[in-house]
């Protein structure tokens, strides 16, 4: 057991699964880098270094650099998955889903159903989400709500290195297409991570903090902001129960519902845009199935209904922060008292 960053945890998961199963291949733009250059291969290892070094051990047959051609990458990965490989395809930024979404949502996600249960599509799509790097409107989005809405896809949104490794290994061993979302600001985040391979089952939320006053469901990077807010609130005598769903599809509805049955109060924190998103999804779930326990309005803390602005000063206002989360919790906590 050693302390590792999310980057290391992801790399380790890939490395261990590629050793374990020769059918696992990595494909994408610059997953090794340097193809056809004077500097030679492995010049990149992904734009953030997650796949760096894999080509040395597994060679170009299994660490496949491609042109800039997302539709062909996702389609090739989907086609390879139904014919015997277990591809881990990289969609560098989730914002690029617009140039390849068909292969993901109409092809890979629907094969099994359209073909009457005959297809298996063990495909993992690793992709980057998140604002906070001044990467502006086309490199900062978190469209996991779009993937989550697609029947046939599974969606993972890890918040720490331990989960990242176990969930990625599960994704690779899973027989369904999985969209694995990595937050661009969290790659260097460290936690204790076992050296050996292990899996974290999908659909099992992680209760990050226990509390009886207000349930706070938070995703990805927001889990950490929620935890910060919880500290402040604890000092004020408000105890938050923080739930990190870890996967949005399948969603661990029971853990969320049981918590709200106890607290009667819910705040959902989501870095993504507010309309038809995960925050509305979870709020609607609770407004239906835990209504009788609800003591206060279900509040959502999300980004505004705007593209992600470039200026750091504006981007800071765009992203939900511990203060806004705390304010929402206070309002919900104080409601009706």
């Amino acid at each position, binding site marked *: 057991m050693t302390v590792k960053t999310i980057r290391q945890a992801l790399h380790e998961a890939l490395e261990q699964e590629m050793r374990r199963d020769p059918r696992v*291949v990595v494909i994408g733009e610059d997953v090794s880098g340097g193809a056809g250059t004077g500097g030679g291969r492995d010049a990149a290892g992904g734009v953030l270094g997650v796949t760096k070094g894999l080509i040395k051990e597994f060679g170009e047959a299994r660490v496949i650099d491609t042109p800039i051609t997302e*539709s062909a990458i996702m*389609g*090739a990965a989907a086609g390879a998955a139904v014919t015997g490989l277990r591809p881990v395809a990289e969609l560098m930024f989730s914002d690029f889903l617009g140039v390849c979404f068909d292969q993901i949502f109409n092809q890979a996600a629907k094969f*099994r159903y359209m*073909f009457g249960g005959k297809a298996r599509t063990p495909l993992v799509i690793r992709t980057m989400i998140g604002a906070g790097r001044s990467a502006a409107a086309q490199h900062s989005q978190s469209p996991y709500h779009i993937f989550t809405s697609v029947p046939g896809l599974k969606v993972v949104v890890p918040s720490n290195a331990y989960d990242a490794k176990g969930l990625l290994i599960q994704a690779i061993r899973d027989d369904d297409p999985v969209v694995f979302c990595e937050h661009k600001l969290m790659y260097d985040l460290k936690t204790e991570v076992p050296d050996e391979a292990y899996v974290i089952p999908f659909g099992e939320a992680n209760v990050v903090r226990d509390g009886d006053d207000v349930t706070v469901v938070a995703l990805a990077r927001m889990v950490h902001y929620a935890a910060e807010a919880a500290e402040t609130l604890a000092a004020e005598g408000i105890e938050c129960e923080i739930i990190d769903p870890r996967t949005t599809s399948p969603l661990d509805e029971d853990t969320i519902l049981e918590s709200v049955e106890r607290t009667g109060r819910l705040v959902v924190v989501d870095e993504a845009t507010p309309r038809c998103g995960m925050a509305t999804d979870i709020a609607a779930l609770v407004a239906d199935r835990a209504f009788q326990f609800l003591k206060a309005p279900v509040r959502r803390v999300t980004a505004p209904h705007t593209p992600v602005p470039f200026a750091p000063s504006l981007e800071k206002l765009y992203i939900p922060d511990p203060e806004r989360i705390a304010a929402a919790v206070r309002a919900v906590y104080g409601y009706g008292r």
Partner: protein
Amino acid sequence: MLDQSRRGPTNEGGYVVQLNREALIQAWRVMTTIRRFEERVQDEFSKGHIPGFVHLYAGQEASAVGVCTELGPHDYIASTHRGHGHSIAKGCDVTGMMAELFGKQDGLCAGKGGSMHIADLDRGMLGANGIVGGGPPLVVGAALTAKTLGTGTVAVSFTGDGGSNQGTTFEAMNLAVVLQLPAIFIFENNGYGEYTGASYAVGSRDIAGRAAGFGLPAVKVSGDDFFAVHEAAREAVERARAGGGPSVIEVDTCRFYGHHSGDAQLYRGKDEVKGLREDRDCLKHFRRRVTEAGLLDHAELDAVEAEVAGLIERAVAMAQAADIPAPEALLTDVYVSY
């Protein structure tokens, strides 16, 4: 893998006899099966027995069969919305196909896919596709599997003239070239994409020429001539199996029905279809070629037709008799596990 025993003695020369008697009879059987299948589907559709949309392949048989004659059970193909012919040529069960079109539980896809999503992975049929240009990237993937696992198989995408203009198709060709994959892209140019002429929608002189620019061998053959298609396919498949990378074949063909059953075909010239059926029927052409060359005689060919007629008859009867899917089927097969 192609069963070599099906090859005729090479010293006979000339591509007509690259296939021996058995192979020729099989090709005729498959082409005839497709033609009768589609004629019957048209019939059942107009009677309201088949729900949804059907896009018929009649007229293009030589393309699917000319190519698939070179493919073995472990080779893959991906098809289009006009997928019945490709499916039959790749060995999909005709009864299961008919039942699928009828939306029945015994259908090849348990009634969940229908005409536009017929697939049979066990037969190497990766699926018809409701998305124009959806298939070529998938074929790159099947070819990637073949190369990575060293299976020696090839993957073939059938795409139309309309689909040749789709970005996904262009990307697939480039990626197949970059990775030097055993992928073959067939462009069935039947002159129309829905109600628009290929001469309008394909900006370049032709599809093969445009494809050649991508850096892969591209030829254009007549889809009226089974043997021309077969010979081009044979070369492309051999090249792919030998590690020679991807190829393109543009098949100049024609469809005898509308874009979909029920299409008023206002975009057709006067008597156009009549003319096509007279002059460009690949089945007639095949019959003439093999009988004139003395490879097969009319009686043999007629016998096969009779056989096939019975097969289709039984398929429809079984499809009609089959049960509709159980209600629970609505919710199953979304995930392997969830």
